[in-house]
């Protein structure tokens, strides 16, 4: 406890150092309050404490905490009040109580600690628990009010009730009401309070209700049980939403990883086993960017999007020109050759960079989470990736449907000879298509660098999944890839709770293997003459 307090102390000290200016005006009043505290006899110190607490001074909490720890002292020579930061040895490190600035070491003999006794400590504890409820910032008050739930006792109840009634902010008020209700259910077995708690997702509220449900008072027990059942319902709903979120999040990762393949394999019919390594290159590009721009992970990440695309696209073109074009019409040989390339790329990264995983920093605006309610919060980085996946998908759809390149790609895919005779340069289309598919793999790598380890094996972990998604969705169908990716991600997450992560993955693989046997052309097959080839 005291460690946390002193840490908090340090933190506030630093903060205060930053905000020293506005505080100065009140310094005279503050000093006089502290002087009263030092001079008052123990019996009267309680009143002074209340004055300090209700002064509204931002530094009040810090002084009182220091006082409770016996770390508030007066310098005998200067008469200034200090907070002891380090009290080992002869010389103690202290900070000025008013400015919060560290002022170095002072001999312990020169310091006169303001004494505190147990009765005062109890009073201080009570005051400190609610002191944050009186600050200006409603966000801080809300946090303080939420933290109070489950820790209200009879010494605090009056104060909190008074604060609750005076509170203007409705969120804070609700949180305080809940805190009071938890206390009432727990300590008093209050029926009205039980009703107030029904539907609450707070863990302390549930604990209080669970206790009440076991009480001898049948009426109370029944009411508590009803409330608990309602909570259970709500939790189930929230859990379902959470699973769905994770499922969609995993699914969008799969879509990202597979969508490039859907182009090279689905549209061009090229089996590129090095696709995973193109993803890996994208991830390493992000890492490289962050090395180039130290201290600006966010900017580096944004720049990595075009850079990752380019790096992977160029690598893809190199692969297409050197190997794949010589193996046209021999899909199995293409598969083997590109697998060889994937081995070379992996080993290249191991030799040139490192066999170990690299850390890619998540920028601040991507970390953290959005709290929907107490049982459900959505992590930001996954939310971004879902959005990114959808944007990439929409972009690809546009390219394939609306641009000249898309038209030419579809023409070459359907009838190469005819397309050529109409003046389409098939070779150029091949290169562009492959560059596009590879570039998208690079984009997937940039996104993946935010949620997984960036290492030489990154690509291998995704290649089988990617193929499964494309085949499951129906080759040559971008919509199929989207639906397949999202549904496989969700299925995986649905299975995980009762099967475990590994078994869930196995089950999904087995499911796809069986599915392909049943419908060899996937969810959305092409039909008719075009499918015969």
């Amino acid at each position, binding site marked *: 406890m005291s460690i946390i307090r002193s840490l908090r102390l340090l933190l506030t000290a630093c903060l205060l150092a930053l905000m020293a200016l506005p505080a100065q005006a009140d310094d005279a009043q503050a000093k006089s309050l502290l002087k009263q505290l030092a001079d008052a006899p123990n019996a009267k110190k309680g009143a002074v404490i209340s004055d300090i607490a209700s002064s509204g001074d931002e530094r009040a909490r810090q002084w009182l905490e220091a006082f409770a720890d016996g770390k508030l002292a007066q310098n005998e020579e200067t008469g200034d009040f200090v907070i002891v930061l380090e009290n080992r040895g002869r010389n103690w490190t202290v900070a000025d109580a008013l400015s919060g600035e560290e002022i170095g070491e002072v001999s312990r003999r020169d310091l006169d600690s303001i004494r505190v006794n147990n009765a005062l400590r109890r009073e201080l504890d009570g005051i400190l628990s609610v002191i944050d409820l009186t600050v200006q910032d409603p966000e801080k008050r809300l946090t303080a009010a939420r933290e109070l739930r489950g820790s209200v006792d009879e010494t605090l109840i009056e104060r909190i009730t008074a604060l609750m009634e005076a509170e203007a902010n409705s969120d804070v008020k609700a949180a305080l009401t809940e805190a009071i209700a938890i206390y009432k259910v727990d300590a008093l077995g209050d029926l009205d309070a039980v009703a107030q708690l029904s539907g609450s997702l707070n863990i302390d509220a549930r604990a209080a209700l669970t206790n009440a449900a076991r009480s001898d008072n049948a009426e109370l027990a029944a009411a508590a049980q009803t409330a608990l059942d309602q909570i259970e319902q709500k939790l189930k709903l929230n859990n379902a939403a959470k699973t769905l979120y994770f499922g969609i999040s995993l699914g969008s990762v799969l879509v990202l990883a597979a969508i490039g393949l859907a182009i090279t394999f689905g549209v061009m019919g090229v089996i590129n086993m090095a696709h995973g390594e193109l993803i890996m290159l994208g991830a390493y590009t992000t890492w490289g960017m962050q090395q180039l721009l130290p201290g600006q992970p966010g900017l580096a990440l944004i720049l990595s999007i075009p850079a990752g695309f380019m790096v992977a696209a160029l690598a893809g073109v190199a692969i297409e020109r050197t190997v794949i074009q010589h193996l046209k019409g021999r899909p199995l040989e293409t598969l083997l050759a590109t697998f060889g390339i994937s081995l070379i790329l992996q080993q290249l990264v191991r030799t040139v960079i490192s066999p170990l995983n690299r850390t890619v920093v998540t920028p601040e605006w991507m970390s953290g989470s959005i709290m929907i309610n107490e049982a459900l919060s959505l992590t930001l980085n996954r939310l971004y990736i879902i959005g990114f996946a959808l944007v990439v998908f929409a972009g690809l759809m546009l390219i394939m449907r609306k641009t000249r390149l898309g038209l030419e790609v579809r023409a070459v895919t359907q009838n190469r000879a005819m397309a050529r005779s109409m003046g389409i340069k098939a070779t150029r289309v091949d290169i562009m298509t492959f560059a596009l598919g590879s570039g998208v793999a690079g984009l997937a790598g940039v996104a993946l660098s935010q949620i997984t380890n960036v290492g030489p094996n990154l690509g291998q972990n995704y290649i089988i999944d990617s193929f499964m998604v494309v085949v499951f969705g129906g080759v040559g169908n971008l919509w199929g890839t989207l639906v397949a990716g999202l549904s496989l991600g969700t299925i995986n997450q649905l299975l995980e709770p009762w099967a475990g992560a590994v078994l869930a993955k*196995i089950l999904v693989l087995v499911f796809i*293997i069986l599915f392909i046997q049943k419908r060899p052309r996937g969810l959305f097959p092409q039909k008719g003459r075009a499918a015969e080839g």
Partner: protein
Amino acid sequence: MTQSTNYGQSWLTRPFTERSTQIFLAVLLGAVALVTFLNLTMPEDSALHVSTYTVTLMGKYLCYALLAVAVDLVWGYLGILSLGHGAFFALGGYAMGMYLMRQIGDRGVYGNPELPDFMVFLNWQELPWYWYGFDMAWFAFLMVLLAPGILAFIFGYLAFRSRVTGVYLSIITQALTFALMLAFFRNEMGFGGNNGLTDFMDILGFDLRTDGARLGLFVASGIALAIGYLICRAIVGSKLGRVSVACRDAEARTRFIGYRVERIQLFVFVVSAMLAGVAGALYVPQVGIINPSEFSPLFSIEVVVWVALGGRATLYGAVIGALIVNYAKTVFTGVMPDAWLFALGALFVLVTVFLPKGIAGLLAGLTQKKASTDKSVAGTAQEAGV
């Protein structure tokens, strides 16, 4: 007579009359006999002595060669590129491993007469049902054939019936072995999880650590390769072998002249899986361990490149490829381990782009050139039309 195949002969005796098979068997069995002789008779300090370590290494290569022959049977003659043959190899290996585990008896670290060490360690109370019978050699050896055979049968039945072919089949065979790898990594499966099965002591009553047992296993591997080769030759030399090639090149046509393509594919696939299982079973006692890494997709696809290097649809090419690549691997990983994956990767690319018919194709090209100059060819006009 230019006619190389005797269509009228029984399928079982036909291989013995084939020139290429005779040469192959002579070289293989001769080499095995020579190594055995040198190992047994030459004094250790002699330059001609073959150490037991080398013998075991060669035994391992022979197992790989048998696996490569199995892959060539389905890829070369049936056109099914299996990227999951490592799974059958590993299943055969696990069946053998389970037998060897049970042979340890109460000599394990924990001294439990019934349970293998890893089960005691994981607090298993009793032997799972699927371990029953593996204390008996005949049962375990039967399982070496049946475990891969049944998996291949179920998988192949579903896949071929639905006419899943080409790259789709390749991808799902890869998914199959990947799923099995994940499954065998789980401790709950009861196959030793990560660590697999190891610390074997004896096989059929012989101490595995003795030179004699190791030599015996080497010879057994050689004989298994010879028999496996003969079985494959018998199949590919038969009418069924020609129908397989027909399925490979023109599946629809084969159906329209009345063959049940899916059944032919299934039969050959299952035979191939069983051969792979035998290879795995002989491999395990020689290397002393079987763990889930044998299921890794990388291993399976590596086998394919052995076959590609040696030359598809020749069988002996598969053997040559397996021996060369694995010898190179041993040398490379000893001298410069980092370079091995570069070399292997380059091999994949170079073989597929520049050497589509493999080493066997090169050899055949040389001999054919000679033959075609000897022979006055009838129907040269038709050839010009190609």
